[in-house]
């Protein structure tokens, strides 16, 4: 079973690595976007799906990664991927104290705390000279798309593997326990604070790393797109559609919706917001658990029937 998982994982990774060779520029960009959005959804799913702390501001770390990379390249003459790595490191380093502070807040206050954080950093990026103010920073253009894709793919695969691990580990069980009832979890011996801060750090590191790739991919960074709250709306909608707090949810939701998301956001931004916002609302009423649990229930039924047939 374990071996098979590893082999399947390797095959998928190899295919995703080779596929861009056979695609034109447009198709490549769609592939990049899909991998990016799926990875962001996976990152959101750790703190919000498994730990139950709904964050509407993980884009904070995405923007931080993007700006770290842009500043490292334009002002520090570092190679872009070093800047992107640095973005991940800074995100993680920030997420530790931030997690200790923010995760004391519960429910709406945590959600709003994170939302406001993203907005505040946007204001900072807009007003600061180092970040180029409202016009942002420009990176040297060139053949950036493919390296950015590989970077994003690598992080996406790692994030998926991390989710697989979390779902089957003691850490993941503790996260789910504190999601269901934090006080009870604590009286059953769960180190609640440490556990949730770890989840928060994972959910921060991933967008922190991805942001750098995005900056390199776009060849510029500016406040509105780097801290776009729509990334969080998207992660929320995709994860709910696929199944919140599940291993496959972000993948299913992300693959189904990335293309639509990108097309709408670019061409009909208003409709984009209405459709994605409305989708969240409608899904919560009609399919609150998402596709993944429905599929696994169907699979289980199928298996049970097959087993009975054999007898």
């Amino acid at each position, binding site marked *: 079973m374990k071996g098979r998982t590893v082999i399947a994982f390797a095959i998928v990774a190899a295919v995703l690595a080779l596929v861009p060779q056979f695609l034109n520029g447009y198709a490549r960009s769609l592939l990049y976007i899909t991998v990016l959005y799926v990875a962001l959804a996976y990152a959101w799913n750790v703190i919000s799906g498994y730990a139950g702390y709904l964050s509407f501001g993980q884009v904070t770390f995405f923007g931080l990664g993007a700006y770290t990379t842009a500043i490292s390249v334009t002002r520090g003459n570092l190679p872009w991927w070093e800047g992107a790595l640095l973005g991940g490191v800074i995100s993680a380093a920030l997420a530790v104290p931030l997690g200790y502070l923010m995760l004391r807040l519960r429910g709406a206050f945590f959600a709003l705390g994170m939302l406001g*954080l993203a907005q505040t950093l946007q204001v900072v990026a807009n007003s600061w000279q180092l970040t180029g103010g409202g016009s942002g920073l420009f990176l040297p253009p060139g053949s950036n798309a493919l390296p950015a894709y590989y970077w994003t793919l690598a992080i996406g695969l790692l994030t998926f593997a991390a989710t697989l691990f979390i779902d089957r580990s003691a850490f993941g069980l503790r996260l789910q326990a504190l999601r269901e009832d934090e006080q009870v979890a604590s009286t059953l011996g769960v180190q609640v604070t440490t556990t949730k801060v770890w989840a928060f750090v994972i959910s921060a590191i991933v967008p922190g790393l991805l942001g750098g790739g995005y900056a390199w991919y776009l060849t510029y960074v500016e406040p509105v797109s780097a801290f776009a709250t729509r990334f969080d709306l998207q992660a929320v909608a995709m994860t709910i559609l696929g199944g919140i707090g599940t291993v496959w949810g972000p993948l299913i939701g992300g693959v189904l919706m990335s293309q639509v998301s990108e097309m709408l956001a670019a061409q009909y931004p208003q409709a984009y917001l209405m459709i994605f916002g409305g989708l969240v609302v409608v899904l919560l009423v009609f399919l609150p658990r998402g596709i993944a649990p429905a599929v696994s229930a169907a699979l289980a039924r199928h298996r049970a029937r097959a087993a009975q047939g054999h007898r």
Partner: protein
Amino acid sequence: MHAALIGQLTIDGLLVGGVYALSALGLNVIFGVMRIVNLAHGEFVIGAALLSAVLFERWHANLFVVLPLAFVLAFGLGALIQRAFLRRLPEDLASAEATSLLMTFGLSYFFVGAWLTFFSGNFRSVPYLTGAWTLGPFSIAQARLAAFVASGIIAVLLALLLRYTALGRSIRATSQNVQGALACGVDVERVRTLSFALGTAIAAASGCLLILIFTVNPETGANVTLASFAVIALGGLGNYAGTLVGAAVIGLAVSFTGYFATAQVAQAAPYVLFILVLLLRPAGILGKSGA
């Protein structure tokens, strides 16, 4: 810095605070009855604000027409949202709060998109009551004063409604104890719908007043939500007296940062206060400390 300037900024801040207080009262009514934190609150405020701006541009419709209209429309919209969506959330106890948060989060973006479609992304204001009265060294903007007074009147009407009407009694009973209210024959489902509708309508009313003072566009709703929550964080959730104090503090913060820093920083000010208060005193300034 002149004493006169400080006085002026204080007056401006307190007058704006009145409108924030009204907006936060709307949130509090909904939270009290439904234990739902409405993340789409700011969008209802902004929707009404933009509606009144457009009506003013087209027909010079004044506040006495626009505010009741927005109130009624928002009341209907709120009732509809509660009936069609919020009420139908799965009754899974462990995740009830999370699901309602996700839903109002979705609603907030839906309405940002809707307002962008109806009203475009332009910043709007209502150039109505542009004059000012002079009072010694201070000038009192008519628009600010009108917004403050109107907020006060609506807040008093709300207090009377909560205290003396049958609906108000049901709302208070349900806020205190759902089981008890049910036992006393309160139709809790109906009270929830009316409360959400009322909270939404109050948000709309505060929007009609807010736009007398500020320039807004559909994307500023999140700032209003944050400011309203900052008020509540300062005052304590469900604490009506605290709301007034919190609103005054936020009004002052906005007024002073708006003068000494950029308008953008002024928008971030409520948030910074919100975080500081929540971290230092999770139960609010007036709330009880402890577990």
